[in-house]
């Protein structure tokens, strides 16, 4: 019964991630046939350029095998990103069970039926495995459909092994997140579990650049995922690595079940005893609570500090990776004429601008999604209703939400931009300060486009808003990645904030693109105000 309940509660995630996996795999596969050419020579040249491109993503994905083949290309462009996406899904799903359902009383109600805690953990973990298997199968179907469109065939065995790796890495992330969530107080669970998963991911991926980390990468499930690339011809599959990931998932889920047995519902395994204190009968004296906008930022101060610090650290990591990437590029003789004629003195800023601002865009889209998730949750937990019982119009609520996001984005981009500037200066890479400020500020309207779309979705259907916004962000990313390949109309490509962001560190801000972004954001904001004013709250 808990198994079915787990599937029922996660139906939006299953549907959303399955569609994303299907579309992503199909588009990348079909895209390969559009851009890779048809003769052996064309494909060899294409493979070489992909291998060069891959060096810039060495901190995210392992180097591709045979990117001149559909299997190698899709493994690199389609399947590896899905592994990260499924890791995020595993985190969200584990938090939903371990803490969200507990706060809503669903766990208490389930235990009251006589279900044991171990059985509950086992059934919900099984439900997640079933869900991620379905989404992986969808990815496989998308790949096969794409291959059929190119009139080729592939070996099914490699595909099945690849999908098994996806399921295993997702399951191991789920188990780890579930275990961490048992150990810490509810309010810290998502941050702690997310931090652990991010650390494990970076431990493995940065070990490709920093040899000193290689000693410890066996701790990371992503290391075992890296040990197999079965999709391309001549690829490899390590059964022991698959078993290691499944073992990590099973062991951590079992550890989570044991911790769950030993802790109180709503509490943490490691409890800090409450200090005796005199009861307080006064409202908080902190003046920030009484100031519009400031109260929104102050309420999320922990998240804001985490985002700001995290982005600043990432900026430092990317600066330190830049020299390595540039050295790889310079070691390719065929690239030298191109590099000297096109980017001339700007090689380092070009690489840094490409890598850092690409990742920053993804992270700012994620920031907007977390804010929209919060707006949706406020609808569900009654906070919107109580806020609307104050003399505050619905339009004012929507505008204040967006304004808080703008302020948060400004703080994060200011700190990460300054960090990038000083870190690159320390590395001997001189960035144009004006361009850097402009490029960093462009991240704010970029986030605003997603937040405005999310605001509209949250006003229209709060329960589906996060899933739909995730799909929108994904579609926007695909739009900019594949728009030129599939020769999509320009107006359609211009709907993607990723495309509109451009390359401001190298070429400055494009006024037309900025105006389009602002227009999209304003359209989203205006329509979300209208939708909010017309909808029922709490019904």
């Amino acid at each position, binding site marked *: 019964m808990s198994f079915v309940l787990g599937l029922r509660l996660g139906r939006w995630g299953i549907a959303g991630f399955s569609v994303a996996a299907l579309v992503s795999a199909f588009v990348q596969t079909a895209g390969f046939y559009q851009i890779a050419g048809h003769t052996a020579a064309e494909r060899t040249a294409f493979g070489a350029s992909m291998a060069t491109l891959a060096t810039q993503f060495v901190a995210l994905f392992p180097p591709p095998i045979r990117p001149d083949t559909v299997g190698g290309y899709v493994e690199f462009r389609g399947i590896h990103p899905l592994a990260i996406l499924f890791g995020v899904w595993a985190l969200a799903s584990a938090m939903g069970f371990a803490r969200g359902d507990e*706060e809503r009383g669903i766990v208490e109600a389930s235990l009251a039926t006589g279900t044991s805690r171990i059985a509950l953990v086992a059934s919900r973990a099984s439900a997640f495995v079933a869900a991620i298997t379905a989404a992986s199968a969808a990815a496989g179907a998308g790949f096969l459909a794409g291959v059929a469109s190119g009139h080729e065939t592939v070996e099914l065995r490699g595909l099945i092994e690849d999908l098994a790796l996806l399921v295993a890495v997702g399951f191991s992330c789920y188990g780890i997140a579930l275990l961490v969530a048992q150990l810490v107080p*509810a*309010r810290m669970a998502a941050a702690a579990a997310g931090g652990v998963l991010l650390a494990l991911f970076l431990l493995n991926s940065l070990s490709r650049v920093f040899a000193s980390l290689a000693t410890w990468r066996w701790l990371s499930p992503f290391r075992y995922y890296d040990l197999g690339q079965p999709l391309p011809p001549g690829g490899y599959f390590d059964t022991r690595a698959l078993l290691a990931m499944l073992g990590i998932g099973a062991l951590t889920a079992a550890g989570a079940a044991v911790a769950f047995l030993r802790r109180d519902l*709503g509490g943490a395994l490691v409890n800090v005893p409450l200090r005796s*204190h005199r*009861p*307080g*009968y*006064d*409202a*908080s*004296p*902190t003046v920030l*609570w*009484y*100031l519009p906008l400031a*109260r929104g930022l102050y*309420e999320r101060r922990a998240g804001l500090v985490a985002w700001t610090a995290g982005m600043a650290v990432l900026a430092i990591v990317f600066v330190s990776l830049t020299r390595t990437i540039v050295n790889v590029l310079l070691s390719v003789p065929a690239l030298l004429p191109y590099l000297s004629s096109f980017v001339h003195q700007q090689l380092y800023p070009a690489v840094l601008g490409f890598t850092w601002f690409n990742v920053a865009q993804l992270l700012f889209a994620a920031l907007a999604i977390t804010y929209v998730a919060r707006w949706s949750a406020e609808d569900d*937990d*009654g*906070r919107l*209703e*109580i*806020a*609307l*019982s*104050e*003399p*505050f*119009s619905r339009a004012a609520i929507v505008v204040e939400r967006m304004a808080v996001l703008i302020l948060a984005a400004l703080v994060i981009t200011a700190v990460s931009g300054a960090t990038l500037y000083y870190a690159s200066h320390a590395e001997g890479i001189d960035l144009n300060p004006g361009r850097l400020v402009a490029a960093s500020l462009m991240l704010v309207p970029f986030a605003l486009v997603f937040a405005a779309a999310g605001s509209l979705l949250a006003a229209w259907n709060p329960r589906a808003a996060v899933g739909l916004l995730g799909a929108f962000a994904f579609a926007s990313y695909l739009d900019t990645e594949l728009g030129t390949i599939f020769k999509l109309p320009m107006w359609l490509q211009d709907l993607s904030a990723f495309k509109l962001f451009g390359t401001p560190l190298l070429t400055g801000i494009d006024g037309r693109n900025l105006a389009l972004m602002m227009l999209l954001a304003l359209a989203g904001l205006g329509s979300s105000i209208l939708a909010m004013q*017309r909808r*029922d*709250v*709490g*019904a």
Partner: protein
Amino acid sequence: MLPEMGAAAIRTSQLTKDYGARRGLFDLDLQVSGQEVFGYLGPNGAGKTTTIRLLMGMIRPTSGSAHIFGMDCVRDSVEVKRRVGYLPGDVPQFGSLSGGEVVAYLGGMRGGVDTRRVHALAERFELDLSRRFREYSSGNKQKLAIVLAFMHRPDLLILDEPTGGLDPLNQQEFYLLLREARDDGATVFLSSHILSEVEHVCDRVGIVRDGKLVRVAQLDELRHIRVHNVELEFAPGETIPEQQIRDSDGVESMTVSGQRVACSVHGSFEPLLRAVSGSRVVDLVSTEPSLEEIFLSYFKEPKPKLLKS
């Protein structure tokens, strides 16, 4: 829009919210005067919370209108809410914020909240505002909702089942607070399915069922209209006119035990008294029904008549 002078605190006209499948609220005509404590009774799913959400402008009516102090609940919702204190049926979840932070956050949105009033209310209910909301028991969460509704001394209190989760002592304290608010000039609209609560504090009662208002009455009036439980004791050796009693208009559920007869009487006593007029009755006890019994008698009827006050 300026509020009408001397307007009723609450006035609804043909107010309807139709969710389909006969769910919702239909054709509600209701008027609550200033300084009145109005109880709104009904079983779960009857339409109480829908009515309250319509009054608060949370949901939009399918048809009809609702006015508070003469202001339209949808069009003038911001002005309306300046004068209203609201306690929702489900206490919102504030996660890791402390009670004091919740009060500051919502007080900051409203502006002009008297911090001494907050202190007095929290102290009165022994609510520790320095604790995190997540650590509160359900009773303490309800107390926080009470503080939020009363902290700005509103002219109208709209309370959706306000005593859920409170222990009896705190319930009594809450009733006292309601009376004080009324004495200070506030109007109260209180929904409940606890009749004793309404008996404690309300001047008038509306009963809603299946989305329709089936009765509005003064509390006293409501007690007297429907049914009395009667016990008669006949003298030893006296023949009981059993058939005459049974045939009397309004007499139901008759039982005979020795010389004692128990029955319930709907409406006038006259037919029963005529039936026993030739017999020696040594004792007659008529028990006033409790509000609980009135309530149950209404909801036992498969199709209640629509009555107007």
